[in-house]
């Protein structure tokens, strides 16, 4: 299996915040599909989307995404 180029904690942070994918999607102005792909590591979000996600979840971008060690 190929190592991910971005480690995403989005699902864990979203669940902690008690939000569904659809609710988070609505907050940042994207579809649920986009949240799903970011959580599954299929899609790497743009800087703008990463910042919006961080703001919606009251955390930092580093709190959501990290480079693999």
């Amino acid at each position, binding site marked *: 299996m190929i190592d991910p180029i971005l480690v995403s904690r989005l699902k864990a942070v979203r669940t902690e915040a008690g939000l569904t994918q659809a609710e988070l999607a*609505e907050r940042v102005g994207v*579809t649920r599909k*986009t949240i*799903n*792909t970011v959580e599954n590591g299929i899609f790497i979000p743009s800087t703008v989307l990463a910042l919006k996600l961080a703001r919606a979840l009251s955390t930092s971008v580093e709190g959501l995404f990290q480079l693999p060690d």
Partner: protein
Amino acid sequence: MTKASPGEIAERAQRRRNRMLWLAPMLFFIWQGAFFSSYATPHTPLRTLEIVSLGSHLFLAAVLLFLLATGGGWRHGRVVKALLDDETTRAHRAQAYAAGFWALAVCALGLYAAAPLVQLATGEIAHVLLSVAVAVPALRFVMLERRAARD
């Protein structure tokens, strides 16, 4: 009854778009058989059936290309339209276009290689190239969108 949110409307519109972009390329491939069995040696002047067939093919190609390029949702408001053309959709579209480019290049290479062996009319070559240019990106796009929607 509660009013659907823009996200829900966009999801439904996405599913409709995927169905359309999946079914129409299938029609294109079925059309290939009909095309090469009749229009490949067209009557002069063209019969009504041939004109309708060619016209429908062109019309469907134009609609599909427009749907792929714009993301659809024309009858919805600005918010839903923006959701239908969000970040992943644009990324999928770019990947679909790339797949279409390579499919066209391979198809053109094949036609070029076959040219000394098989006589092909301009209309036939245009038909094949247009079908590949429409069907391959549309199918690739749907594939990516469906994969993205899976949990």
